[in-house]
Each structure stands twice: as C-alpha cells, then as structure tokens.
C-alpha cells in the first residue's frame, strides 16, 4: 500500500512544549484514530496536518510533498471540525456547493456533486433546508458531505461527534464507517473516546501526555478482542494522565 501521509518528528510549542516529537505514517485508505489524554495536543496535531498551523519542528508530507501553512493552494484536505461550521444563511446544498467553487466546477456540476454527497451522508430530501432547520446530527452529516465533496486526499475529523448525544453518536460512527468503506478515503479521526476509536478505526495511535509523543500504534483489524483492546487503551490513558498530574505536581 502507498504511504499517504507522513508525519516526521513534528513538534509544537505554545510558550510550553505541547507536542514534543510525533512521527507516524498513514497508508492510503486507512482509517486512523488519534487518541490521547486531554490537552495532549490532538487538535493541534490535526491542525498542523491540515496546514492550518505551522509546526515548530519537523514536517508533514502528503503524497510525498511537504504540507505548508502558507501554500494552501497545494493542499487538498477535507476537515470536519468539532462544530459543523456550516454557513447558516446557505441551504445545505449551497453550503456544500460553495467549497466546490475553488475546484473550478461549473454551477450545474457543483450542485449535482453536492446533492450526490449529501445523499451519501444520508441527507437526501434535505438539500434545500437551512442548517438552523435541521438537527445537530444532520448538520454534522452535512459537514461530512462538504468535506467529502472536494474528494480530498485526506479527510481530517476533529472530534466531530463531541456535541452529539450518545445515541446519535453511535449512529454517526456507523455512518462514517460506512462512508469510509464506500468511498475508500483516507481518514484521520481525533477522539478522546476509546470506545469510539475501537469501534471505527483500523489503526489507533495513542499519544502520551503533554509534551506528547506516540505512545503506541495498534492495528485494529479484528485479530484482537474488542474488550481487551479497550481495557489496554484505558490503562494507557490512565497511566498518561497520572504521569501528567505527577509532572505538574513537581512543577
């Protein structure tokens, strides 16, 4: 399999070092979940991968080319944020069609493609609705449709279901898994929920406490029993949280 994304010794400081040095590789078509204790820089790492923020050290390569914050025209990354970030004054269809403009598609082609991806995300029949008129889960579906519509090299998702209730969350996890299987996109999914990661990721990357490094990379191909996996990961997170509290106590 081809390597899609390479993270090479990436570090980031915000007054204090947040990310020490993180390296890993993502192969094309993988569904990677980034896990770690709160405040370990998961979101920051995702923003670096998306070119929204420059790293303090190291570099990120997408399809072999370096990702740089100032060269955004070369980037082809879809991002689903914690909030839906839809424009409330545009219908769901227009929200998706808007991000297709920079791809140089004609109006008709934009709308057709927008409708297609909204349908893929389970929003057929709701294309003309304004975001304020649909539920939070549906807004997040539309945000996913928007990210997929640009047919990105990598889809970055930053705790996209954090704001949803438990039931919707489970439904959306299955939906993302289905969409991943149907589209074959490479997905990087940040979450603090171990159950969520174990349920949807093919590869789980556990970060250590701040300043973070990669603590473990685990293949989640079904060879390991789900319950044991969750237990192991939980133990790891607990250790990291304790370590962080210990470090802060000494300071």
């Amino acid at each position, binding site marked *: 399999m081809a390597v899609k994304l390479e993270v090479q010794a990436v570090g980031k400081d915000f007054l204090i070092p947040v990310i020490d040095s993180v390296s890993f590789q993502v192969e094309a078509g993988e569904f990677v979940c980034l896990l770690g204790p709160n405040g370990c820089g998961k979101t920051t790492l995702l923003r670096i991968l*998306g070119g*929204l923020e420059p790293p303090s050290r190291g570099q990120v390569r997408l399809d072999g080319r370096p990702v740089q914050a100032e060269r*955004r*025209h070369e*980037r082809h*990354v879809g*991002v689903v*944020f914690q*909030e839906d*970030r839809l*424009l*409330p*004054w*545009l219908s769901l269809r227009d929200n998706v069609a*808007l*991000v297709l*403009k*920079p791809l140089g598609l004609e109006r008709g082609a934009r709308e057709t493609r927008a409708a297609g991806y909204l349908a893929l995300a389970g929003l057929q029949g709701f294309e003309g609705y*304004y975001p*304020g008129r649909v539920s939070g889960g549906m807004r997040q579906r539309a945000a996913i449709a*928007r990210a997929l519509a*640009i047919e990105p090299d990598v889809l970055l998702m930053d705790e996209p279901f954090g704001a949803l209730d438990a039931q919707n969350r489970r439904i959306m996890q299955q939906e993302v898994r289905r969409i991943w299987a149907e589209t074959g996109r490479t997905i990087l999914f940040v979450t603090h929920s171990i159950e969520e990661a174990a349920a949807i990721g093919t590869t789980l990357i556990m970060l250590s406490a701040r300043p973070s490094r990669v603590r473990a990379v685990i293949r989640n191909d079904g060879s390991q029993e789900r319950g044991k996996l969750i237990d192991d990961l939980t133990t790891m997170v607990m250790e990291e949280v304790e370590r962080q509290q210990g470090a802060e106590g000494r300071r």
Partner: protein
Amino acid sequence: MLALVLAAWTLLSRRYGAYVLPAPWSVVTGFGEIVRSGEIWGHSAASLSRIAIGFGSAVVASLLMGLGAFVSRTARGVVDDLLAILNSTSVFVWIVISLIWFGLSNWAPIFTTFMITLPVVASNLVEGVASVDRRLLEMGEVYRLSPREQFTAIVIPSTLPYLVAGMKVGFGLALKVSVVAEIFGVTSGIGYVMNYSREILATRMVFVWALVMILIMFATDKVLFDPLNRRLSRWR
C-alpha cells in the same frame, strides 16, 4: 385606547384653545389641504433629498469604515475612537458649526445629518464586522475559498443584519435631525415650514407637518426596512 387619546386631546384642545393645541379633526383637514394644494410634496421632497445626500454619504462612509475595521486592527482602533467622539457630540454643535462653515444653505442640514447619522450606522457596522465568526473564516481557509469568495459568502451575510439595523435607526435620526437643521437658513423642507407656521401663529400646520414626518417614518419602515429584514432573516 386610540379613542381615549383622541377624546382627551379634543377636551384639552377645547380647554386651552386651538393656538396651543389644535383639535385632532382640524389636523386631519389641514393634512387634506396640503395634500390638495400639493404643498406636502415640495417640502417633503426637499427634506428627503437633503436626507438622501447626508444620510447616503454617512452610509457610504460607514461602509468604508467597516471595511477598514475588517482589514486592519489599527484602523479598527482609530474608527472606534472616532465614533466614540462623534457619538458624544450634540446635534446643536453640528448645526452651529455647519452654519459657520456653510452659511445659510442646503449644506447646513446635509452636513448635520451626515455627522449625526454616521456614528450610528458605522458603530453598528463595525460591531457587525467584529462579530464575523472567525471559525467560519477558518472553514473558508480550509476549503481554499479566495478572499473575494470569503468576503461575499461569509463576511457580507453576517454583517448585513447589523447594517440594516443601523440604517433603520439612522434613517429615523436623519429625519429628526435634518428637520431641526432646516429651521436655520433654508427656505424649503419640513423643518422650515414648521418653523414658518409657528411664526405666523398657524399652530395647526405645525401639527400637520409633524404628522407628515410620522407618516414618512412609518412608510419607510413598512416599505423598506421591514421587508428587507424579513428577507435577511429568511434562514432563521
């Protein structure tokens, strides 16, 4: 309620005489007279054209200030300070200054209107610009929208309600202020004709022209601002 007010008005009018308080019915017939004679159109048009120039320039200047505040943080600070000063300056100051600068001419009410409505419209707009959701702009960055696309798709729609609200208040203020400024130095307009009516002891006509002002305000709200607001809040 309305009947009660009219009854009280009529009684007070009887008690104090038509010079102090003309009866409601006489105001209505007076209104009929200026409509028939066509006098209403000339003076209203004179006032409205001054408002159009003064208020219109204030809106244009506000748009430039809003744009400046959006583009640069420094400009934002300058605009904020300037608006704070303008906001605390009285109508009378501008009337006196404009009389000194422009003498007895059309430009006195126009300038006064401009200076008074500018801070109202501009502070609304600057507030609107400041309230643009940075997270939406970041979304625009992620999806590589050009600066122009970001401006038209994100900045303008989020600022427009603030602009319309500012214009609605600003227009009401423009009407009130320009009429005061018209007392001095011009020979047309609602303010002029009200003051003239007072001088010739035609209190009834003062009330009639006050009614004209109310109707203009009412009409612009119903014809212009309310439909505009409805259209803007379609998605809510």
